[in-house]
């Protein structure tokens, strides 16, 4: 196994270990932050990192030897690793103190850390786009040409959509548009508001374009119109993400429960 894919697998393993730590934490924890148990947020972020790094490991393991040994890719995985450790340790450390991480502008320390989290998040999505770009151009990759196309489009689209949705998120004072009344309905499992606008569903779709579009490509690969399906699917996915985004900005919940 090449070192880049190996590092991505290692990061997948550490994110899984953090999920396990979150579940054990849950057994001893009673404190809540904004009506949610404090261990939930680090757990959700760890899960998200598992999905991100497993996808990147799967793709990079299939790149040609030349693409794998490119210096740009080695730097990408190193910077993403640094961002991962920083984000997870800060989010978990804040949660363990019953404090917020995102949107915590309480004093200069938390302002700097929130800014660094933004930098880390941008590194993660730009790194993903870079891997997508390398895959797109790597004609010797052990991926069919349609699948390779889907990976490239999905990874780059994921980056662009996330920069838009998460950019809007970070320019606001919180992820809600409106103020949900105490005890208001949330979407089961995800915890997104079912009462007021919530930008997280659009952010979620944006992040997971990097799995959805390659999955579509895998399904349609080899068909005569495969590229057309992939481009059409990417356009539809973008439209859906933007619809959820605009809906949330208008203060409307994804579904009212």
């Amino acid at each position: 196994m090449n070192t880049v894919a190996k590092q991505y697998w290692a990061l997948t393993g550490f994110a899984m270990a953090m999920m396990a730590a979150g579940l054990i934490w849950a057994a001893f924890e009673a404190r809540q932050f904004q009506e949610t148990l404090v261990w939930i947020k680090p757990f959700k972020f760890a899960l998200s990192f598992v999905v991100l790094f497993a996808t990147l490991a799967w793709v990079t393991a299939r790149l040609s030897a030349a693409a794998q040994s490119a210096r740009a890719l080695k730097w990408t995985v190193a910077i993403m690793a640094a961002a991962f450790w920083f984000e997870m340790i800060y989010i978990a450390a804040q949660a363990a103190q019953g404090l917020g991480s995102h949107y915590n502008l309480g004093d200069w320390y938390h302002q700097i850390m929130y800014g660094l989290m933004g930098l880390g998040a941008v590194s993660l999505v730009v790194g993903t786009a870079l891997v997508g770009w390398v895959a797109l151009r790597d004609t010797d990759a052990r991926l069919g040409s349609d699948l390779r196309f889907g990976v490239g489009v999905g990874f780059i689209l994921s980056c662009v959509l996330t920069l838009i949705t998460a950019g809007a998120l970070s320019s606001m004072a919180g992820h809600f548009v409106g103020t949900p009344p105490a005890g208001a309905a949330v979407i089961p499992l995800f915890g997104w508001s079912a009462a007021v606008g919530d930008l997280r569903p659009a952010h979620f779709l944006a992040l997971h374009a990097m799995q959805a579009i390659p999955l579509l490509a895998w399904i349609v690969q080899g068909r005569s119109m495969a590229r057309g399906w992939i481009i059409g699917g990417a356009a539809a996915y973008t439209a859906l993400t933007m619809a959820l985004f605009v809906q949330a900005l208008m203060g409307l919940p994804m579904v009212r429960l």
Partner: protein
Amino acid sequence: MSAEDLFGLASAAVLPGWLILMLAPRGKWRWLDRIPALVIPFGLSALYTGLILAHFSAAGGGFGSIAQVRALFASDWGLLAGWVHYLAFDLMIGALMATQMDRVGLARISQAPLLALIFLFGPLGVFLIWAAQGALRMMGKGDAA
């Protein structure tokens, strides 16, 4: 020397060890590898030996219940012995884990935060390393960490 002085001294003594583990090249100079793995833990183990022999017999002290352990740690000297125990063993384990992580080729950028976690919360860092190894082995990616 007072308990407070020794506390400061022992706490300062481990810092070079952790800095070497996190930042310095490994497997290049044997003497450098031995500072965190052997030299500092050995010194602290010697200090602990003296402290525990002199202070273990604190009134009501023992390992049988929380109350007995609290009695051991009731005096500054007993507490100091316990702290030196942490310092020595966390660094020793950190050095051991660093060797293991080198063996599987884990990048230093990921090793450093794990070592920092072992420095601060010993078993928490060890848990993450072992849980990650276990998860990767189950997925057939055991050579990644």
